[in-house]
C-alpha cells in the first residue's frame, strides 16, 4: 500500500503545484474567454436583446471598419517598443555594470515614478506637453516643432506616452539578464583578442537576449491594446484599436463587434508573438552554441 501510494503522490506533486495557477487561469481567463467568444458570435442590439446566431460577419465587419486603428496600434506599439529598447538597454547596462553600490538606488529610480497610478502619470503629461508649456517652447526654439506646431494630439505624443509608460517593463528584464552575466566571460573574450565591440556582440548581447525578448514582449503586448495614452495625449487621428473597442463597448453598446474586435486583436498579437519567439529564440540559441564552441 505504502509502496504503491508513494510514487503516485510523487507523480501528482507537479499537478498540485500547478493547481492554484491553473484554477486562476480557468476562472479568470478560460471562462471569460468562452463568454467573449459566444458574445462575438451574437447578433442584435441592446434594445432588442442579443441572441446567439453564429454571426461570423461580426469579425469581417470589425476588420473592415477598424483596419486603420489596427495598423496604427501595431505601428505605434512597435515604434514605442523599439524606442523603449534603445533607451532601456544602455540604461540597464549602466546600472548592471557601472552601478556599483548605487545599483539599488538606480533601480528604484527607474521604478519610483510607477508608484503613482498610470492615469495620473498620463494626465500629468498633458500638462507637461501642453501647447503653452515649457517643453513645447523649447522644441519650437530648437526647431523640432514648427512655429504653430504642437505635440499633444499628435502621434508623437501617443508614442512618447506609451514608451514612457512601459519603460520599466523593458528595463527590468534586461537588467536581470545582464546582472546574471558572468563578467569573466567578457574578460575571457578580451583575453582571446576580442575588441570591446566584438566582445559585446558575441558575449554580452547574446546572453542578454532572453531579457530583450521578455522586455519587448512585456512592452509590445500591452502597448498594442492600450487606449489611455490616445485618450489623453492623442486625438481622433491617432486612435488605436483599444479606443475602437472602448467606443464600441461603452458608446455604441455594440458588444458583439467589440468582442470580435478583441478576439482579432488577441489573435494577431499571439501570431506576432509566436513568430517573434521563433525568430528571437533561435537567435539566442545560436549565441549559446557559439559560446560553447
Amino acid at each position, binding site marked *: *500500500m*505504502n509502496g504503491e*501510494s*508513494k510514487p503516485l*503522490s510523487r507523480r*501528482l506533486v507537479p499537478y498540485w503545484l500547478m*493547481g492554484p495557477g491553473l*484554477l486562476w487561469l*480557468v*476562472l479568470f481567463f478560460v*471562462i471569460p474567454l*468562452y*463568454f467573449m467568444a*459566444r*458574445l462575438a458570435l451574437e447578433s*442584435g*442590439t*441592446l*434594445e*432588442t*436583446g*442579443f441572441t446567439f446566431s453564429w454571426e461570423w460577419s461580426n469579425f469581417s465587419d470589425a476588420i473592415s*471598419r477598424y483596419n*486603420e*486603428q489596427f495598423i496604427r496600434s501595431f505601428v505605434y506599439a512597435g515604434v514605442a517598443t523599439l524606442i523603449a529598447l534603445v533607451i532601456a538597454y544602455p540604461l540597464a547596462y549602466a546600472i548592471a555594470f557601472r552601478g556599483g553600490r548605487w545599483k539599488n538606488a538606480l533601480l528604484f529610480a527607474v521604478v519610483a515614478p510607477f508608484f503613482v497610478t498610470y492615469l495620473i502619470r498620463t494626465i500629468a503629461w*498633458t*500638462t507637461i506637453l*501642453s*501647447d*503653452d*508649456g515649457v517643453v513645447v517652447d523649447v522644441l519650437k526654439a530648437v526647431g523640432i516643432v514648427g512655429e*504653430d506646431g*504642437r505635440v*499633444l*494630439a499628435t502621434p508623437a505624443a501617443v508614442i512618447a506616452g506609451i514608451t514612457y509608460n512601459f519603460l520599466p517593463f523593458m528595463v527590468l528584464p534586461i537588467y536581470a539578464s545582464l546582472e546574471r552575466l558572468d563578467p569573466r566571460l567578457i574578460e575571457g573574450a578580451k583575453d582571446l583578442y576580442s575588441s570591446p565591440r566584438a566582445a559585446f556582440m558575441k558575449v554580452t548581447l547574446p546572453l542578454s537576449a532572453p531579457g530583450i525578448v521578455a522586455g519587448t514582449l512585456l512592452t509590445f503586448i500591452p502597448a498594442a491594446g492600450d487606449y489611455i495614452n490616445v485618450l489623453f495625449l*492623442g*486625438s*481622433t*487621428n*491617432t*486612435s488605436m484599436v483599444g*479606443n*475602437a473597442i472602448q*467606443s464600441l*463597448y*461603452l*458608446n*455604441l*453598446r455594440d*458588444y458583439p463587434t467589440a468582442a470580435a474586435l478583441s478576439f482579432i486583436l488577441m489573435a494577431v498579437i499571439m501570431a506576432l508573438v509566436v513568430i517573434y519567439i521563433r525568430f528571437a529564440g533561435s537567435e539566442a540559441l545560436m549565441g549559446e552554441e557559439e559560446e560553447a564552441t
Partner: protein
Amino acid sequence: MKNGAKGMARALVAFGVLVAALLLVACGGDDGGIEGGADTGGASTAMAEGQPSGTLTISNWPFYIDNDTVPDFEKATGLSVKYTEDVNDNAEFFGKMQPLLSEGESGGRDIMVVTDWMANKMNKLGYLQDFDQEAVKPAMDNLVPALQSPTFDPDRTFSLPWQAGMTGLVVNTAEAPDVKSINDLFDPKYKGQVEMLTEMRDTVPLVMKADGIDPKTATKEDWLNTIDKIKEAADSGQIRKFTGNNYTNDLANGDAVAVIGWSGDAIQLQADNPDIQFVMPTEGCMIWADNMVIPVGAPNPTAAYAWMNYVYEPKNQAQITDYNYYFSPVDGVKEILEKQDPQAAKSPLIFPTDQYTTNCTNQVDPPGSDEDVSEVEQAFQAVITG
C-alpha cells in the same frame, strides 16, 4: 503515509466539487451572459419608507454643485452622502452602467443625473423606477412651470430636473476674440485649438444650425451630412479632439481656445482665467435639462426623496445655482439671489430673457426608427474614434 493518501483523496474530492461548480456557473451563464432587451413589465415605483436614514449615493456631472450643499444636507438630515462626479458623457455613462442596470443593479447608486434623452432611453429600457409622488411632492410643488411637462415625461413620473442649461460656445476671449458663430470653429486660424463635445445631440445640431438647418425638422440625411462635415474638420486636424465635460482642462491650460461647451462651466473656469466666457452663438444654442432619476436596484430611495426635496427648497437651490450658473428648475430662486448675489440674479445664464435665447432649440433625437438613430450614432462615433 495512509493519512497522506486520505488527505489527498479529500483534496481531490474538493477539487472535483470546485470544477463541477465552475461548470455549473459556465452552463448556467448560457441563459445570462450580457443581454439587453427592453423590460416590458412596466416600471416599479420606488416607495419611500419611514424616515430617511443611512447612506445616499449620487452620481452627477462635474462642476454641478458647490462645496457646502452636501455637508449642509448631511447636517440637516443626519444622512451620509456619497456624492460622485462620475458622469462625463451620457452615452459613456450609460455604457458603464448598462450591464449593471440590466441585472436590476445600480452599483449602489440612489440617484443618477442624466440628460433628457438619456432619461427617456433608460426609462424605455426599464432601468428606472417611478417616483413615489407623495414623497417627492414638496419638490414637485416648487418645479418651475416651464419644466413641468417635457414630452418624454409629461407627468414627471420618473425624472426631476437637476439643472437645465445651454450648449453654445465657450471661448478664451483673449486668444480667440472673434469667435461668435459655430462656423468660426471651422476657421483655419484656430486649427488644432478647437474642440467639440462627444455629446452628439449637442454637437451635431449646433453645427447644423450654423448651416441654416433647423434641427427640429432635420432629416436623417441632414444629420449624416453634418456629421460628414465634422469628420472632414476632424481629419484635417482643425478639431483637436472630442471631449466630455473634461474640455474644461484643455481650456484652462490653453490647449483649446474655443469649444462647444456648456453655459455654466464658463463661470467655473473664470475663477482661474477671467477671459474664458460663454458666448451665445449667433445662430442660437441648444437647451436641455439634466434630470435626477432613481435607477432600478437603488438601495435607499427614501433618502433620494429627502435629497430632492432638500435641493428644491428655494434657499438651498439658490446656493447651488449661485455656484453652477445654470438655469434653475426651482421657483423662487431669483428673489433670493436678488438679495444675496444681485450680479448672479442679473446673469442671462441663470435667468435668460426670451430675447437672449430667441434662436435656441430644445435638444432633439435624430429622426426615425431605433435603427435610424443608431445609424446616425454609429456615424458620429466613427468620427470620434477616427
